[in-house]
C-alpha cells in the first residue's frame, strides 16, 4: 500500500494535469455541441452530416462516429477518442519514467532496499497509475455529465461509466505494454522504443480501416478493443469482451514486465549486446563540432532529431497515400459534391492533404518544441546548466544558443518531412505546388518557435513547472483555435493561438501578418526569458 501511495505521490502532477485537461476538453466539446449543432432536428442532421465528412478525413486516426448529430456521438468522436490517444501518451511517459527514469535517479534502488520485491514494486506502480487514470477518466465523465446538463439534456449513468472504464482500460494496457518494452531497451532508448511500439499498435488498428490487408493484424492492438465499443451515442454499444481483453492485456503485460524486471540488472536492459574489451582512453574527443556553437548542440541531439525527422517523414508518406481514399469517401456523399466542386477547380487533393497533414504536423512540431523545453528544464534541475554557466558564457548566450539549436533542428525536420511529402504525393499522382509546399513546411519552424519562446520563458521562470505549464498552454492554444469561432472569442485572443496563426499555407499561401505575429510572439518569449534568466538564481 505504501508503494502505491508513493507511486501516486510521484505521479500526482500528471494525475492532476491530465484530469484537468480531460475535464476541460470534454466539457468544452460537450457545451460546444449545443452552440454549433443547432436546436432543430434539421439543423442537427445537417451538423451530423458535416461531422461525418470531417470524420472521413480522419478515418486513419479515429473510428467513424455513430450518430454525430447527437451529443453522445459527437463527444465520443471529438472528445473521448482523442483523449484515448492523449492518455496513451501519458501512459507511455509514466511507464518509461518509472521503468527507467526513476531507476536512473536511484528511486527504484531505494524502494527495493526497503525489502519490496521487484514484482511487488511493478504491481504497486501499475496500481498507482490505475488509480490516477481512473481519476482522470472520472473527471472526463463528470465533465460530460455537466456539459450535457448545461444543454438541458440528460445522459444514462451506465453509458458514462462504460466510456470512462474504456478510457481507463486502454490507458492502463498502454502503460503495461510500455513498461514491458522498457525492460528490454537501454535507458536512453526506452521511451523511444516503447513509443514506437505503441504508435505501431495504434497505426496497425487505425490504418486497417483504410488498408484491408492490415485487418489480419489488428487483433494485436489494444486500440482495436477500444474501438469495439462506442457506448455514448444512441444505438451505441459496449463490448464487454473487448473491455475484458484490455484488462487482460494490462494484467499479462504487467506480469511479464515484473518477471523481466526480476531477471535483469538495475540500470541495464534485459537483452544486452556483449561489449568487447578495449583499452582505456585518456584523451578528450577531438571532433571539431564540439567547438562550434549550435553545431555541438545539434550533434548532442542528433538521435532525437533523426527520430523526429523519420517519424514525420513516415507520417507524410502515410497521409499522402491516404489522401485519395479520403477524397473518394468525401465524393461518395452526394450532398457534398456541389460543395467539393468548388475545391476541385482549386485542386481538391492538395486541399485535403494540406488540411490533414499540416494539422498533424503542427501538433507534432508543438510536441517537438515541448520535448526541447523538457530538456532545458532537465539541464537546470540536473546541474548541467550550472556547469555551462561556470564556463565564460553569458546567460543570454546560453538562451540564444538553445533557441538556435531548436530552430536548426526544426528546420531539418521540416525540410525532410516536406521533401518526403512532395515525393510521396507525387508518386500518388498528387502534384503539389512546390513553392507553396516549401513555404508551408518552413512555416512550421516559426510555429514551433512560438512554443519554444513561451517554453524558454517558463524554463527561465520555473524549470520544474515549465513542461506542465507549456503543455497546458499548447492545449489551450489548440482549444482556442478549435473553439474560438464557436464561442465567438475576441479576435485578439484567437490570434494568440499559433494553431490559428499557421493558417492553411499549402492552399492559400502564407499570411504575412500571421507570420509576423508568430515571429513577434517567439521573439517576445525569448527576450523575456533572457531577462528572467539574468535575474534568477541557478542551482539554488
Amino acid at each position, binding site marked *: 500500500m505504501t508503494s502505491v501511495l508513493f507511486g501516486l505521490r510521484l505521479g500526482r502532477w500528471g494525475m492532476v494535469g491530465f484530469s484537468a485537461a480531460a475535464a476541460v476538453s470534454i466539457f468544452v466539446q460537450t457545451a460546444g455541441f449545443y452552440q454549433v449543432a443547432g436546436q432543430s432536428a434539421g439543423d442537427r442532421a445537417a451538423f451530423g452530416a458535416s461531422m461525418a465528412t470531417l470524420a472521413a478525413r480522419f478515418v486513419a486516426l479515429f473510428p467513424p462516429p455513430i450518430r454525430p448529430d447527437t451529443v453522445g456521438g459527437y463527444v465520443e468522436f471529438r472528445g473521448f477518442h482523442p483523449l484515448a490517444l492523449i492518455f496513451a501518451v501519458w501512459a507511455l511517459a509514466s511507464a518509461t519514467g518509472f521503468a527507467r527514469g526513476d531507476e536512473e535517479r536511484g528511486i527504484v534502488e531505494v524502494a527495493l532496499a526497503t525489502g519490496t520485491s521487484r514484482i511487488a514494486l511493478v504491481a504497486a506502480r501499475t496500481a498507482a497509475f490505475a488509480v490516477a487514470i481512473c481519476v482522470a477518466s472520472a473527471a472526463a465523465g463528470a465533465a460530460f455529465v455537466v456539459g450535457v446538463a448545461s444543454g438541458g439534456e440528460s445522459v444514462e449513468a451506465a453509458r458514462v461509466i462504460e466510456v470512462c472504464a474504456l478510457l481507463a482500460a486502454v490507458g492502463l494496457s498502454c502503460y503495461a505494454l510500455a513498461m514491458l518494452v522498457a525492460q528490454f531497451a537501454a535507458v536512453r532508448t526506452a521511451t523511444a522504443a516503447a513509443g514506437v511500439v505503441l504508435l505501431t499498435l495504434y497505426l496497425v488498428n487505425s490504418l486497417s480501416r483504410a488498408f484491408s490487408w492490415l485487418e489480419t493484424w489488428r487483433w494485436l492492438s489494444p486500440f482495436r478493443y477500444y474501438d469495439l465499443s462506442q457506448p455514448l451515442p444512441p444505438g451505441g454499444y459496449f463490448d464487454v469482451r473487448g473491455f475484458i481483453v484490455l484488462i487482460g492485456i494490462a494484467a499479462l503485460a504487467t506480469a511479464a514486465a515484473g518477471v523481466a524486471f526480476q531477471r535483469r540488472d538495475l540500470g541495464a536492459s534485459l537483452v544486452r549486446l556483449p561489449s568487447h574489451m578495449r583499452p582505456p582512453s*585518456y584523451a578528450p574527443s577531438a571532433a571539431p563540432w564540439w*567547438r562550434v556553437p549550435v553545431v*555541438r548542440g545539434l550533434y548532442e541531439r542528433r538521435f532525437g532529431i533523426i527520430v523526429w525527422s523519420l517519424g514525420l517523414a513516415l507520417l507524410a508518406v502515410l497521409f499522402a497515400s491516404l489522401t485519395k481514399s479520403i477524397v473518394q469517401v468525401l465524393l461518395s456523399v452526394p450532398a457534398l459534391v456541389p460543395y467539393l466542386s468548388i475545391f476541385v477547380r482549386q485542386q481538391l487533393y492538395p486541399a485535403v492533404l494540406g488540411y490533414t497533414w499540416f494539422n498533424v504536423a503542427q501538433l507534432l512540431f508543438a510536441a517537438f518544441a515541448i520535448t526541447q523545453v523538457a530538456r532545458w528544464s532537465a539541464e537546470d534541475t540536473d546541474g548541467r546548466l550550472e556547469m555551462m*554557466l561556470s564556463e565564460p558564457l553569458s546567460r543570454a548566450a546560453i538562451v540564444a544558443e538553445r533557441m538556435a539549436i531548436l530552430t536548426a533542428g526544426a528546420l531539418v525536420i521540416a525540410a525532410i518531412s516536406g521533401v518526403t511529402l512532395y515525393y510521396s504525393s507525387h508518386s500518388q499522382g498528387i502534384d503539389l505546388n512546390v513553392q507553396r509546399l516549401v513555404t508551408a513546411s518552413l512555416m512550421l519552424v516559426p510555429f514551433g518557435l512560438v512554443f519554444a519562446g513561451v517554453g524558454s520563458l517558463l524554463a527561465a521562470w520555473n524549470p520544474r513547472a515549465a513542461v506542465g505549464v507549456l503543455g497546458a498552454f499548447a492545449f489551450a492554444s489548440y482549444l482556442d483555435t478549435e473553439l474560438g469561432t464557436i464561442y465567438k472569442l475576441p479576435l485578439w485572443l484567437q490570434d494568440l493561438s499559433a494553431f490559428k496563426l499557421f493558417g492553411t499555407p499549402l492552399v492559400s499561401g502564407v499570411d504575412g501578418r500571421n507570420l509576423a505575429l508568430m515571429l513577434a510572439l517567439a521573439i517576445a518569449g525569448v527576450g523575456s526569458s533572457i531577462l528572467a534568466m539574468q535575474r534568477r538564481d541557478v*542551482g539554488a
Partner: protein
Amino acid sequence: MLLEMALAAIHTSRLTKDYGAGHGLFDLDLHVADQEVFGYLGPNGSGKTTTIRLLMGMVRPTAGSAHIFGLDCVRDAVEVKRKVGYLPGDVPQFGSLRGGEVVAYLGGMRGGVDRRNVQSLAERFDLDLSRPFREYSSGNKQKLAIVLAFMHKPDLLILDEPTSGLDPLNQQEFYALLRETRDAGATIFLSSHVLSEVEHVCDRIGILRSGRLVKVAELEELRRIRFHRVEVEFAPDESIPETQLRAAPGVENLAVGEHRVTCTVHGSFDGLLHAIAGSRVTDLVSTEPSLEEFFLSFFGEPKLKALPS
C-alpha cells in the same frame, strides 16, 4: 579599498544571501590573497555552497558584493569565469555522453583548453574518458569534475567539497595536484566539512556556522585548537604509564582501564607519544572528531541546527 579588491583573488564585502527564516549567508567579509589556499570549513547547511554559488554568479546576493581579481561576480560574471575553474558540490548528470565528449563539450564552450593537459589529468586519476558518463561510478564522476575544473589551468579554483566520493589513494593524488597547482601560482578556495582535509592543503581556513563567518585562522592556529580522540591498548604484561600520560602536554580527559586508556589530544601528538614511548603498545587508534564535535569543543555550544546550503 579598491586596491585591496584588485590585489585579492577573492574579496567579499557584507555579502548576504537571505533565503528567509534565518537560512542563507549573512554579512560575509572575506579576503583571500592571490596564490593562497583557503579552506572554507563548516557543517552541512552552514552556507558554504551558497557562498560558492554567489562567487560564481549563480545566485544573486541580497546585499553586499563579491569580487574576484577585482571583477564583480554578478556584473562581470563572464570575465570572472575565464579566470576560474569550478567544481560543484553535486556532479551534474551528462547522461549518455562519454567522458571525453563532456570534456570536449564544456572545453569547446570555454575555448583554448589544452588537450595534453586534459590527457595528463585523466591519466593521473586513471579516468577512462571513452566510457559513457552514465556508466561512471560516483568516484569516476568526481574525477571527471576535477578534470573539468583543472583542464584550463585557471588562476583561481573554486572547489565545493572536491574529495567527496574519492577513495583515499585518489584523495592523496588530489592533494598533490592542489599543491602543484598552488606552486604554479594559482589560488585555491576549497570548501569542506572534514578538518583533516583542510589541514592537508590549506594555508588559512575560514569557519562558517549558521551562515556567518565566525573565525579565520592560520593553519597553525587550527592545529592548536583541533583535537583527536585517542585509544591506546597496551600489552597484557605492560604497566600503563599513567603519571606520564597525565603530565603529557595536550593530553586531556584521560580514562584508564585495565590495559587500555582513552583520552583526547589537543594540537600535537608529541606529548602522548613521548609518554608511551617506553611501553609496548599493541594498538593505537586516533579518531578525528566530527565538525559538530569540534564546534562543541571550540565554541562550547551544542550542535547547531542544520540549514540548507
